[in-house]
């Protein structure tokens, strides 16, 4: 399969619970001891209903807050994320996969107790030449929505394969 044919393909989808334990552990994981992430009374004193999440939390949330029995039908049809296949294809001749860029756009507050619905897809694949090496860019987007279907966070990011 030509790489371009993967543009638009879903990478996954799921339901995530924003749970205090994982949020607090994640905040400590990025050295953040701000009490609003750890202590309900501190969160309330700062104007939150419940502890909010650190800025990059949603990127890891797929690994932290998914309950298997609640997950929707596999949008990849049992094939798994096409990103793994693309990386295997690119790495056949060696090279290195790098995380190139990562952006978060915040539409609403994310606080503990919320349930989020996410969907990911590949939005672009292209190549560039740099210092005589072929760089292949895989651009992806993950959209997180609330129970009402309103967008909460959009993540736009890429992985780069740098050829030998």
């Amino acid at each position, binding site marked *: 399969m030509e790489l371009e044919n993967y543009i638009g393909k879903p990478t996954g989808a799921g339901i995530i619970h924003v749970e205090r334990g994982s949020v607090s552990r994640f905040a400590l994981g*990025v050295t953040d001891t701000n009490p*609003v992430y750890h202590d309900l009374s501190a969160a309330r004193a700062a*104007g939150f209903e419940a502890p909010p999440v650190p*800025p990059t939390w949603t990127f890891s949330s797929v690994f932290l807050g998914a309950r298997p029995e609640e997950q929707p039908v596999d949008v990849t049809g049992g094939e798994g994320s096409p990103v793994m296949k693309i990386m295997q294809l690119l790495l056949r001749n060696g090279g290195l996969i790098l995380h190139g860029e990562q952006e978060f756009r915040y539409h609403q507050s994310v*606080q503990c107790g*919320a349930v989020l619905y996410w969907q990911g897809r590949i939005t672009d694949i292209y190549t560039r030449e740099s210092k005589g090496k072929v760089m292949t860019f895989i651009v992806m987007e993950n959209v997180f929505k609330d129970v009402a279907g309103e967008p*909460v966070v959009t993540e736009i990011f890429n992985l780069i394969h740098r050829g030998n």
Partner: protein
Amino acid sequence: MPDTKTKNTLILQYDAITIGDEAPVISHALTRTDLVRYAGASGDFNPMHTDEVAAKDAGLPSVFGHGMFSMGLLGRAVTDWAGADNLKVYGVRFTKQTWPGETLSTRIVVSGKEETAEGKIIIAQLTLHNQDGEAKLSGTTRVLAA
């Protein structure tokens, strides 16, 4: 379920912010423990970040830091300055790997101000660099101000 639309208190005062203002710097000496803690907290157990033997077998001098740890550390400097949950956009480009033993420092410089439909916005340019000034991340944020 909490009302997820509840807004946090805004920290920055729009009229008091000037282009060129800098936020307080956070410096952090990166350790292997940081990498293991971030792996557990995030679920990212790529052995290049946690397994010294595997990293050396792959030709690397040691394990190296998760890019998303760096982004999290820089994000902490943004929220310490602008308040948790006051970000509208936070984006970075990963430019260099981080290594245990380096001291990583944040730099946040105000580059613009805009009054928009979503509120008063402060724009800042961001970098995370090591003790020799080598940039690890560069990026931009848009934060809400009062």
